[in-house]
């Protein structure tokens, strides 16, 4: 089970998925809008997930 935080919805939940891509599909997360952080490290979409990983979907922000 992976611990997930979705910043846009300010939502924490647990989920199961073999990699980040599958997790994003399951949670219906738009790949154009987020950067993905796994255990405090920026993660590529094809990265495998392990039990008790922490995954954060942080919104892309572009103001200045």
């Amino acid at each position, binding site marked *: 089970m992976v611990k997930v935080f979705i910043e846009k919805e300010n939502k924490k939940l647990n989920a199961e998925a073999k990699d980040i891509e599958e997790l994003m599909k399951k949670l219906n997360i738009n*790949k*154009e*809008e987020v*950067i993905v*952080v796994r255990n*405090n*490290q*920026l993660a*590529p*979409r094809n990265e495998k997930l392990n039990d008790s990983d922490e995954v*954060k979907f*942080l*919104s*892309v*922000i*572009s*103001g*200045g």
Partner: protein
Amino acid sequence: MIMQYQRVRKIIDMEVLRKKTVTIVGLGSLGSFTALLLAKNGVNLNLIDFDRVLVENLSSQLYSGKDIKKYKAEVTAEYLKKINRDIKIKAVNERLNSLNMNILDSDLVIDCTDNLDTRFLIDSYCYRRIPWIHTTALKTIGLVYVVDNSLSDLYSSDISEDLCDEHGILNTTASMVASMAVTQAIKILLGLPHERDLIRVNIWDNTFDKIRINPSGKREIRIIKLCRNNYSVNLHKELDLNILSGKYETILKKDNIIIVKPKIIINRNGYIIFENMDKDSIKKWLRFL
């Protein structure tokens, strides 16, 4: 050493700092606070912004009512000259584009713009030549990242943004992001080790993330969405405009730029803007370059 630095010089080497010049691109919330802090620390400045002050800028930027409709770069320069007469300030009232990128030449560039397109333009010019810091903010969230390799390490080609959106930034977020960025800037200018991780704060929740980014050692070619159906691409290579203008129906031809049909603006340095085209057609088009 002038009196104004006699306390701060016990913390940082003012003799070195006073000889340095930083370019700030964008003088909105992040840029105006960043410029103020650097000016107070005795750093010379190049200030770049094509925009003029609007009434809605007053709550989160350093401007006052009498500045409305004036160029942000000029107003900031005048204001900071009064704050610190010891520094040199150059104001550039231009939008950064592929033809004027040499205005970035300095000891360090700080990106305080509000769009990925300009950010990747900075990336293309500074890549392994000039150190630069990426900053951005929205509402109560802010981010600072010293770009050691390329910004494409952080923003993959999947990422897109709606540039036509009106962004709002709480002024406390802006001043915090500026403080973090200027601290890193001082370290870089003094040749000291700087933060390698991306720093991301939410000032409302008091949360602070440090995110490790592994530089890929290369640059991606990205198709970046601009407003409406316009896209930009940087091929990071010199193009032969004579060959291209012979190959495609050319609307306009100058030394460093050509415009071909339907409407593709091609710069000699590999920076291209596609107007009114979809991503798939652009991908097909790029195969021939």
